[in-house]
């Protein structure tokens, strides 16, 4: 009762956060006036860059004849590795990503040179005049190739909990299987683009579409051989990113900066869509083997899994991505004993990279398949098996030694079961399937538990900069970048709440390394969590000075001062916010502050594979129903019910958008989006004509989304929870529902459905269960 009262008074007190405010750029987006990098008015003397690559996936570069390129009309400069003053490298962790190939060729199309010309068309035409000769070596394209060749980019890694071999041997039942999980192209609608503008004293300003301005700044400084302070990277907004503009923006930003340094003129590169798809990393595809032991009720006794991923030619973020696959191989289920291994395979393909979920979705797929296997083996409803295996009190230690403290999933699943009318529909589906031959319906209700924090502990820090001007207007900068996820409005809401003013009084400035330094990527769903706190701390510092000033000036105690409704209430009078600011200025009070935040409680020991890598978990559940034509493999998602936990949402409108969008993107990953490589290493699906991205008609007809009503138990910003990535994994319910539909054909067999569940994949699984 008193908790409820507290809650109500808190909700009454809060004026700006937790409200569904519009995206700050809404009016500009609908007017076409929101500026993306390629929309920036071209500076005088702008040059354009086109990159040239090598038509081989491996081997040695024998020679590059660029004479004709140099002589082509409009060409101002032609760049190769020899032109780089500093390091020929844009690798984020291991430093194995050259800007230009020097001798060893690692993937088809890898960049060897770049042309800088007066027009983009001239640059592209000239690039075609190069003669590139190479001695082609042997190469690995698929995970299978790499496993056969023993080609690793990083050492294998294993988490161990208890003696899983003994526990498997002692289990009443055991099932073994293998699951193939495809990769995914980001297809951020705005492709990779960078504009570099040289300044005085060797300074460089780069407008680029990246989630990680600080990393771009550091890599470019190293390449140009200038101090980091000479390089400024600025990002106003991105036209989508999804992880694909974290490290993968670097090569293009580097090319623009190098060209600008060498020519002394502004230079721009915008990748052609096909090049973008061929030359940038994607979600890792996995080949995962698993064996699960369980009792007669379907409770897991032990899980062993070996998950091998296609990392591509360089390490990029593959270490942390594979780690996250391991962190989520339990998904929401208690594993009394487990051995979880990842193999990080090197292939001669683009370097696979971050993509919404960051390996987590692939790990979770194994857990969800294991549960389905148990249900199939014991002829139980998969939902019952899921519920029996959820974490709960006394069954709450993860394979990596973290205690699961807020066990809300049992209640959340129960509610989703009721709101989706799961049991009654289950009966109807069984009746439908009994009467229909070609058409089969399937349904699945799956939970998601996703760990929030960067698993690389030091990245969990953020900074912000807040100024208040004499008219009471507020200027906000922080390290988070806007890619459509609404971080700008959320953090602005936090600052407005702190000062008790309307959100539109807070001017949101482009993210810039000159304003807030040493930032982490806007990634791991943590952007609003950490930048929100940093901004609150910055605003809070100014507010504290204002309170001290007002207490003295009006002779009241600080507790009698309150900021709300664009006014400051001081004792029993009030003044407009701007008036107090003006007075504070005259009294020489500093009206500017930085703010900093580091996530508490987290620690991780990679040597033992134990610790608390996550500050908290975000949860959700989705119930999906599909209709499958088992004669053609066609599939339609008919109804989806989602219940998702965002803590106390900072902005429910933004969060619901993230849930819908994440689900649709996850559905694309698991159903229609298929990457196909030729044996020679070429990507064959390099345009939306051959790579099928969900469109409006693919969205389920009945798509119900509800927010779980509960606060974050940890002290996050206004008790909210991160939302960027977790909803993507709700789409695993679509994949499981398809398997469920196929399973109706033969209840005695497991369904070896691989992802993506394209019509071909569905037909293969149909054949396997019916033959």
């Amino acid at each position, binding site marked *: 009762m008193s908790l409820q009262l507290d809650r109500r008074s808190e909700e009454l007190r809060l004026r700006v956060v937790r409200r569904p405010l*519009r*995206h700050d*750029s*809404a009016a500009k*987006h*609908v*007017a*076409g006036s929101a*500026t*993306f990098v*390629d*929309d920036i*008015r071209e500076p005088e003397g702008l040059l354009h860059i086109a990159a040239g690559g*090598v*038509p081989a996936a491996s081997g040695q570069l*024998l020679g590059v004849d660029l004479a*004709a390129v140099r002589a082509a009309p409009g060409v101002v400069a032609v760049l190769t590795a020899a032109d780089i003053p500093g390091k020929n490298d844009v690798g984020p962790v291991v430093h194995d990503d050259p800007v230009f190939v020097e001798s060893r060729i690692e993937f088809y199309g890898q960049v060897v040179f770049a042309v800088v010309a007066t027009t983009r068309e001239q640059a592209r035409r000239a690039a*075609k*005049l*190069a*003669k*590139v*000769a*190479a*001695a*082609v*070596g042997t190469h690995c394209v698929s995970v299978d190739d790499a496993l056969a060749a023993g080609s690793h980019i990083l050492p294998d890694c294993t988490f161990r909990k208890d003696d899983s071999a003994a526990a498997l041997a002692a289990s009443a039942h055991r099932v073994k299987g293998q699951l193939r999980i495809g990769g995914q192209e*980001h*297809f*951020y*609608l*705005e*492709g990779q683009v960078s504009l570099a503008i040289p300044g005085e004293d060797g300074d460089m300003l780069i407008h680029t579409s990246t989630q990680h301005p600080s990393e771009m700044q550091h890599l470019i400084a190293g390449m140009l051989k200038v101090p980091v302070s000479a390089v400024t990277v600025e990002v106003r*907004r991105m*036209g*989508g990113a*999804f992880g694909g503009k974290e490290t993968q923006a670097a090569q293009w930003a580097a090319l623009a900066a190098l060209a600008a340094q060498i020519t002394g003129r502004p230079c721009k590169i915008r990748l*052609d*869509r*096909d090049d973008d798809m061929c030359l940038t990393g994607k979600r890792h595809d996995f080949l995962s083997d698993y064996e699960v032991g369980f009792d007669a009720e379907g409770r897991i006794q032990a899980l062993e899994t070996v998950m091998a991923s296609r990392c591509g030619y360089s390490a990029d973020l593959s270490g942390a991505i594979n780690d996250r696959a391991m962190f989520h191989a339990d998904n929401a289920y208690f594993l009394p004993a487990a051995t979880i291994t990842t193999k990080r395979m090197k292939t001669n393909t683009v370097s696979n990279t971050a993509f919404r979920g960051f390996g987590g979705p692939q790990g979770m797929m194994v857990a969800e398949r294991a549960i389905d296997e148990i249900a199939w083996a014991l002829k139980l409803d998969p939902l019952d098996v899921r519920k029996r295996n959820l974490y709960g009190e006394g069954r709450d230690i993860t394979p990596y030694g973290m205690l699961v403290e807020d066990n809300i999933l049992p209640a959340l699943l129960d509610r989703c079961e009721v709101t989706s009318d799961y049991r009654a529909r289950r009966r109807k589906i069984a009746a439908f399937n009994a009467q229909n031959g070609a058409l089969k319906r399937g349904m699945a209700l799956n939970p998601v538990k996703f760990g929030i924090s960067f698993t690389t502990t030091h990245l969990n820090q953020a900074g912000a900069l807040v100024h208040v001007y004499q008219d009471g207007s507020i200027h906000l900068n922080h390290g988070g970048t806007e890619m*459509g*996820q609404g971080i700008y409005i959320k953090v602005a809401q936090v600052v407005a709440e702190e000062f008790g003013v309307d959100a539109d009084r807070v001017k949101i400035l482009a993210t810039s390394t000159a304003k807030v330094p040493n930032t982490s990527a806007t990634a791991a769903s943590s952007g609003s969590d950490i930048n929100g706190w940093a901004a609150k701390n910055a605003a809070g510092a100014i507010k504290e000075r204002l309170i001290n000033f007002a207490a003295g000036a009006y002779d009241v105690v600080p507790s009698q001062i309150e900021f709300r409704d664009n006014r400051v209430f001081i004792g029993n009078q009030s003044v407009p916010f701007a008036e107090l600011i003006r007075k504070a200025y005259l009294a020489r009070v500093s009206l500017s502050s930085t703010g900093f935040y580091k996530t508490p409680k987290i620690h991780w020991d990679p040597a033992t594979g134990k610790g608390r890598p996550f500050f908290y978990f975000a949860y959700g559940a989705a119930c999906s129903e599909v209709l499958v034509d088992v004669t053609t493999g066609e599939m339609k998602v008919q109804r989806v019910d989602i219940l998702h936990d965002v803590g106390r949402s900072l902005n429910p409108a*933004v969060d619901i*958008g*993230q849930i*819908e*969008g994440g*689900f*649709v*993107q996850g559905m694309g990953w698991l159903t229609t989006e298929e990457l196909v490589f030729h044996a020679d290493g070429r990507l064959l699906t390099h*345009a*939306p*004509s051959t790579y099928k*991205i*969900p*469109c*409006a*008609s693919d*969205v389920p007809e009945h*798509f119900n989304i509800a927010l779980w009503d509960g606060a974050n138990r940890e002290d996050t910003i206004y008790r909210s929870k991160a939302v960027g990535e977790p909803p993507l994994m709700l789409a695993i319910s679509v994949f499981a529902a398809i398997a469920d539909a196929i399973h109706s054909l033969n209840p005695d067999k497991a369904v070896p459905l691989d992802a993506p569940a394209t019509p071909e994949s569905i037909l293969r699984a149909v054949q396997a269960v019916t033959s």
Partner: protein
Amino acid sequence: MARTVRAVMEAEPTAPAPEKLTVTLVINGRETRLSVAPWTTLLDTLRDRLALTGTKKGCDHGQCGACTVLVDGRRINSCLTLAVMKDGAQVTTIEGLAKDGALHPLQQAFIDHDAFQCGYCTPGQICSAAGLIAEGKAKTVDEIRELMSGNICRCGAYVNIVAAIQQAMGKA
């Protein structure tokens, strides 16, 4: 072990650049005479020549819908259309939808429904929806979804996009 095959990227012959042609377009109500190369797309003409950057380039191959504009009231992919093919035509871009300072009902509906995330597809979605409404073919939600399927939204804001279009249709 390595197969030593020579992979050689040979120089590709390039055609000589033909002269430019003159084209007159009525863009957002204003008559504009331009001399353009015959292969210049309407999209590049709008963005690079006229600084009308509201129309976006997503794929440049007619596969994403980001570049949708209205030509004589009909929606087209401006990346697939050569400027010289549209001599004399009325072109409406996202910048030309608002009338006398008032937002087009679709623009207002997209704001009301939060029908975007990153916003990159938005101009194309709105122009496409304007074309759809003018066609008068879509009557049901399903038909809207089907007839808007040429416009990809990678952020997956479809639910709100369709709701916004419905709202605007109700008012149209």
